[in-house]
């Protein structure tokens, strides 16, 4: 059984607000040993993107969109049984949404994805204050900090947060992600941000994140 086979059924259940049916589908996929990456990207992310399109086209109401979000958030922990039992390396990542960014499912998934690759993945969730993040990086000392922005108008705060983390923690690697960056142009384009802050790397996809985690830099422990 793969995600493709159950996607339609899952999306219909999500739109209908049928949490039990959604849960059954996810459990079925887990029991069948489905690749976790596919559950995250093709099922959770794919269905939430569809929910966004349906809302945009006024096919579903804002209430249905909220319900789908809360169902998705409640299902993420189902995967944990297969995540946390894995052997871990002593590496950690701290992922956060920039201030005034409330789209937090992506950052939870990214933190989980680090777990999947044997790292400790910590997530601070939505709307993280700049000072709070800078302090948390100091306290927790992660190898990597991940910043997320979904809305284009949050690109300036992403840039401010990046500057604060880079200034206070010049030795920490910083990853940038989220759909806002696909709109970034000029000073907020991923390339311009990477150039201004050489410790920052824009990660455009899960595949790029996998390649980053598996890169010699982290495998060889430099």
């Amino acid at each position, binding site marked *: 059984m793969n995600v493709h086979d159950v996607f339609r059924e899952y999306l219909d259940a999500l739109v209908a607000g049928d949490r039990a049916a959604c849960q059954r589908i996810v459990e079925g996929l887990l029991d069948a040993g489905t690749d976790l990456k596919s559950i995250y990207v093709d099922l959770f992310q794919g269905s939430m993107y569809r929910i966004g399109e349906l809302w*945009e086209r*006024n096919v579903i109401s*804002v209430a249905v969109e909220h319900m789908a979000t809360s169902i998705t958030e409640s299902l993420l922990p189902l995967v944990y049984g297969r995540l946390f039992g894995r052997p871990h390396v002593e590496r950690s990542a701290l992922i956060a949404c920039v201030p005034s960014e409330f789209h937090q499912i992506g950052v939870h998934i990214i933190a989980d994805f680090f777990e999947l690759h044997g790292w400790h993945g910590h997530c601070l969730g939505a709307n993280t204050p700049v000072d709070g993040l800078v302090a948390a990086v100091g306290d927790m000392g992660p190898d990597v900090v991940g910043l997320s922005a979904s809305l*284009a*108008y949050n*690109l*300036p705060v992403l840039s401010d947060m990046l500057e604060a983390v880079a200034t206070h923690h010049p030795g920490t690697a910083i990853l940038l992600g989220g759909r806002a960056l696909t709109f970034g142009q*000029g000073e907020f384009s991923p390339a311009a941000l990477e150039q201004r802050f050489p410790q920052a790397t824009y990660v455009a996809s899960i595949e790029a994140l996998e390649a980053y985690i598996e890169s010699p830099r982290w495998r060889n422990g430099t």
Partner: protein
Amino acid sequence: MGDHPLPGDEREIAAAVSACALMFDGSAYLSHRYGERGRQFCRSGGGFLIVTCRHVHAGFLEQVRWLVGLRAARGMPGWLLERHLVILHGCLRREIPAAGTRYDGLLTAATDLADRRRRHLAEDAFLAAASRFSARAPDCHPTLPEAGTLLAAALCDEAAGNEGAVRSLLDWLADPRRFPPEWIGAVHATAGELAAEISHECP
């Protein structure tokens, strides 16, 4: 989905509020159909436009085009956003005379939307749509002078790929509980006539 961001500057908020007052006071359609809640959405939409224009620069047009789709699917054709952008720019200039070119992105976006609309219907035909409709429905609802223009605008939006633009306008404009049969007949006849003139090609 939550609220759009508020601009940080009080004068920008004042401009967003007065732009919506002008939009709603100048449009019987907007005030009849969307009422007080619509005014609130209009204000938060104005906030979104100001913040995005001020901060996102080059990516602003893409955001405005997204907003066209979102609103068109809710019965607000892109032409209303064109007007909103121009009015908002005027209100900002009045509130913040020293702003210089800071908000000119709003006008650029309005021009972009108008250009896109004209790809599907020539400007003279678009401008004539209002009188075309009132010629068919002379005595009913003189309070909705923009009905023909809205039809033309929704047809352009639909031709540009914004699914549901016409249906969501007709849900209200051709609602038998709201309008007499002659009005509804005029709506459908005008829409049919205009649809025949719409170009679906994307140059």
